[in-house]
C-alpha cells in the first residue's frame, strides 16, 4: 500500500515539507519544485505515513525521479 511521490516535472527542489514518520493527508504539499523560475507544489498522493524522503532541498531532479515514499 505504499505510494511513491515522483517528480512531476524537471527542476530544483526548493522546499521539502515532510519528515520521515510524519502523518500526512492526501493533497497536502510535500515539496516545492522550481522550474523556469516558477515554483510548483508537489502533493501527497494518499493518506499515510512518510516512510522515506529521497530528495533534499537543492537537488536537481528529472521528471519521474523518486522524491519520497508514503506508506
Amino acid at each position, binding site marked *: 500500500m505504499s505510494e511513491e511521490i515522483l517528480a*512531476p516535472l524537471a527542476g530544483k527542489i526548493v522546499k521539502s515539507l515532510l519528515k520521515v514518520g510524519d502523518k500526512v493527508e492526501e493533497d497536502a504539499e510535500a515539496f516545492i519544485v522550481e522550474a523556469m523560475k*516558477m515554483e*510548483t507544489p508537489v502533493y501527497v498522493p494518499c493518506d499515510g505515513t512518510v516512510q522515506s524522503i529521497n530528495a533534499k532541498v537543492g537537488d536537481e531532479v528529472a521528471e519521474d525521479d523518486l522524491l519520497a515514499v508514503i506508506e
Partner: protein
Amino acid sequence: MTDIPMIEKLLSLTATTGFLHLTPGMLIMWAIGITLIYLAIAKEYEPLLLLPIGFGILLANLPLADLMKPDEGLLWKFYHFGIQWEIIPPLIFLGLGALTDFGPLLARPSLIFLGAGAQAGVYFTFFFAHLMGFSIQEAAGIGIIGGADGPTTIFLTTKLAPHLLGSCAVAAYSYMALVPIIQPPIMKLLTTPEERGIRMKKSRKVKPLEKLLFPIVSTLVIILLVPASAPLISMFMIGNLFREAKVVERLTHAAQNELLNIVTLFLGLPVGATMNAENFLQPRVIFIFCLGLFAFMISTATGLLLAKAMNLFLKDKINPLLGAAGVSAVPMAARVVHKMGAEADKKNYLLMYAMGPNVAGVIGTVIAAGIFLTLLG
C-alpha cells in the same frame, strides 16, 4: 578692464549648455523614458531591455549632446554597427539557442502546429495595419510584434521600417512583460474549465541523438525554405548545437552567459536612442501600440483555437491551453499556461509540455520574419 573678455567667455559658456535648446517634446520623452525605467526597476517588466531602452530615450532627447549624430555620436555607432549591421539580434539568438531545450518539442512534435498557429496574429495584424494606412513594410514590422520575440522584431523593423524601430521594440517588450495579464482573460474566454484541467499523456523520452540532429536538420531545412531567415536561424541553431553536443561546454557557457549578457547590454541602449521626440511623438505610435496589443491577443486566440481544433482529431486530447504557449514569449507564456492549468486542476503540471509550443513559436516567428523580408525587403 581685462575682466570683460572673461565675463564674455563665461556667458558664451552658458550658450553651449543644452538648457536653451530643450523642447516640450523632449521633456515628454524624458517622462516616457523615466516611466520605462520605473517599470523595469519597480515592477520588473523585462528589465534587461526596458531599463536601457528607457535610459537611451533620455540620452536621445538631450539637445546638443549629439549622441545619435550620424558618424559621430557614441550611441549612433552602437546603433549602426550593432543593429543596422544586423549583428546584435543574431548574437542574441546565439545565446538563446544555447539556452533552449527542444526536448519537450521533440517529445511531441505535433505541438509545432501550435507554434505555427499562434503566428496568425502576426499576419492578421499585418493586414489590419496596412488597411489602417501603414505602408506594407511598416505593417510587417508592426505585425511581427505579435510574434512576441524581441530580437526578431528589432531585426525585421531595422530592415523594413527603421523609423518604427523604437515603437515596435518597446511595444513588443512591454507586451511580453504583460503576457500574464493579456493572456488569461482570452484563455478563460475560449476554453472551459474541463478543457483547462486536461492532463497531458506522458511524452516519450527523447534520445540525445535526436536533440543533436535537430539543430543541424532544422538549419538546413529552414534556410533552404526561407533563405532570408538565415542570420537568425543559423545563430539560434549553432547555439543549440553547442548545447546538445556537450563537448564545447566553455562555448555553451559563454553563449548562455557572457555573450548573451554583453549583447543584451548593447541592444537596449541604441534602440531607446532612436526614440527622439520628432520620431516618437506622432499619432501613429498610438496605433502601433494598439495594433501590437491586438497582435498578441489574436495570436493567443488562434493558438488556443487551433489546439481545440486538433483535439477533434486526437484520441489523447491535448490541453488547449498549450495553444497560448505558441506565443513565443519564452518562458512567460509557458508559465501562464501552467498556472491556468493548475488553477483548473492543482495536480496539472503543464509547464514542460507548454515549453514545446513556446520554443516552436520562436522558430515560427523567425520564419514569418524571413517571409516578410523575402516578399517586402
